[in-house]
């Protein structure tokens, strides 16, 4: 974190981050914490909050990049109560660990974000859905919620405004699919966490059939700052025209300094890797990265300069996902890496729909054959066809699962074919 170059960008979400401890409520307050909420509860109204979130162009940081303000606005004026805000702290996308870092850095930032989202959605209950691996983070949140409560920031009559909101922590039993919003709602209701295809959308009929807003930790953490500093300020944080805000990038893999870096939206990929993460380890060459977790496609070296924001990647046919940048160097076999990714997806499929449940193990089997040098052009065609069909699965899991495979086939066909032609892995 102490590298000189990082200083040239403002630190927003991670401004109170310490290497060895958690920011206290006082520290958070000193940095302007709870000012946004105070102002909102004092002179604002829910509609206003929704509007400013929309104007700020705050896109969901959990992977789907849906505008947060727009999501809130889909709740009908006369929709029933109680309404819920679910803070998605499941973070099971491989390569992603920003939510953990955000909680450890500054838990009150998240609490304030949840209360703001709650107020905007006129919700009375906030639930933090957290993966079991993050038990320590769960305890931090529970403790800090109590601190906030004792300060009148959570619970009944928040800041004497008449607004009530309770926040609880819900521990997951641990499954990737629980991160998917509708599956998460099922998990919270104590039924099998299979996704549920809309309509109805969670904002119409979510948790306990009531309007529910599911929002990622980082998305929620942005909200206090937007309310305090305004939509325009948030937009100006980005380096690109279409971007807004900062982004917490989780960099891992073949880099010198893996970790979380809060950088402006639109920062070039190369800068993230070469400057902030200290460059490729052991003098290696950048070969590719998964830009946003395991369910995105490999970005090849030819796009090393690409600005990392939702729009720029989309234009090249990629997705920013969770902005978990997983870096591979010249010595890594991407076919082998893809087999590993498929292992993950085949294991974590929720088992609801056929393409994903049975098709992914099939593709994995084929991919393993290719990796072992037992594939043929026909095998590769089969893989490609099945990957295409995976987009007709029930939820976004399966398209995500085949994204790296499709990326591999699109950008690294030579490497794949080398396996076929040499009858084995050229990297071994």
């Amino acid at each position, binding site marked *: 974190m102490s590298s000189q170059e990082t200083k040239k960008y403002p630190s927003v979400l991670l401004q109170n981050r310490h290497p060895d401890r958690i920011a206290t409520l006082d520290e958070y307050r000193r940095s302007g914490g709870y000012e946004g909420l105070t102002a909102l509860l004092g002179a604002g109204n829910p509609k206003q909050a929704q509007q400013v979130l929309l104007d700020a162009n705050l896109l969901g940081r959990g992977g789907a990049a849906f505008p947060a303000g727009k999501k809130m606005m889909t709740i009908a004026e006369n929709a029933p109560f109680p309404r819920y805000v679910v803070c998605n702290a499941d973070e099971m996308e491989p390569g992603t660990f920003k939510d953990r870092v955000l909680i450890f850095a500054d838990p009150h930032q998240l609490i304030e974000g949840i209360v703001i989202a709650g107020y905007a959605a006129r919700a009375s209950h906030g639930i933090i859905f957290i993966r*079991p691996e993050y038990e320590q983070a769960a305890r931090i949140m529970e403790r800090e919620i109590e601190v906030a409560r004792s300060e009148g920031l959570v619970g009944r009559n928040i800041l004497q405004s008449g607004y009530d909101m309770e926040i609880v922590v819900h521990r997951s*039993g641990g499954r990737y699919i629980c991160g998917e919003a509708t599956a998460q709602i099922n998990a919270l209701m104590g039924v099998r966490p299979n996704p549920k295809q809309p309509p109805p959308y969670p904002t119409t009929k979510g948790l306990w059939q009531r309007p529910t807003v599911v929002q990622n930790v980082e998305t929620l953490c942005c909200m206090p700052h937007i309310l305090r500093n305004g939509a325009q300020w948030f937009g100006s944080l980005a380096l690109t025209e279409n971007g807004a805000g900062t982004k917490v990038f*989780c960099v891992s893999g073949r880099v010198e300094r893996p970790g979380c870096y809060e950088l402006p939206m639109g920062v070039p990929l190369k800068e993230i890797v070469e400057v902030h993460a200290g460059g490729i380890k052991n003098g290696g060459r950048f070969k590719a990265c998964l830009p946003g977790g*395991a369910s995105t496609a490999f970005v090849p070296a030819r796009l090393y300069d690409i600005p990392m924001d939702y729009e720029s990647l989309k234009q090249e046919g990629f997705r920013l996902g969770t902005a978990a940048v997983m870096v591979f160097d010249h010595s890594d076999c991407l076919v082998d*890496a893809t087999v590993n990714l498929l292992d993950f997806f085949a294991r974590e499929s929720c088992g609801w729909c056929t393409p994903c449940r049975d098709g992914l193990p099939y593709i994995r089997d084929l991919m393993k054959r290719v990796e072992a040098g037992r594939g043929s052009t026909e095998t590769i065609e089969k893989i490609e066809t099945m990957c295409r069909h995976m987009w007709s699965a029930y939820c976004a899991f399966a398209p995500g699962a085949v994204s790296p495979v499709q990326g591999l086939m699109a950008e690294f066909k030579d490497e794949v074919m080398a396996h076929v032609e040499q009858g084995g892995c050229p990297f071994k």
Partner: protein
Amino acid sequence: MIPEPTLSHLKDRIAAADHPRELVVDVMFALQEHYGYLSDEAVETTGALLGMSPLQVEELATFYTFLYREPVGRYVIHLCDSVICWLDGAESLRDHLCRKLKIEMGRTTPDGLFTLLPVCCIGYCDRSPAMLVNRKVYGPLTPEKVDELLEKLKQESE
């Protein structure tokens, strides 16, 4: 039998909940804590506490990674095998652990001390290769660090 304080604490929480079923994972975890794993009895008790049938509890118990329906060792080692840890040698670490503990993945040492399970990315890719022991994270790991840790845990248990 579950100790009375645990049970009454659970009962209180259930009574206070708007929707008792939302606590099902918590209840399973609490009973797993007590039994060491989620025994048949624990499944049945969970059902009885929440007005669910044992099957309905089982439907959930068998879905989640961190609910163990079979006995496990005192230390449950979840070794991450997802892509970043894999890049950083998770496979050789796995082989090392298996050799060291003389068990295959998915098994428990005969002394009942260690259970070895794979797990997908645990969100510590900045500390790869990483693993959890009783949900506490360790990483970045080397075979030496693993040996040290195993030794320490063995001693702790004596």
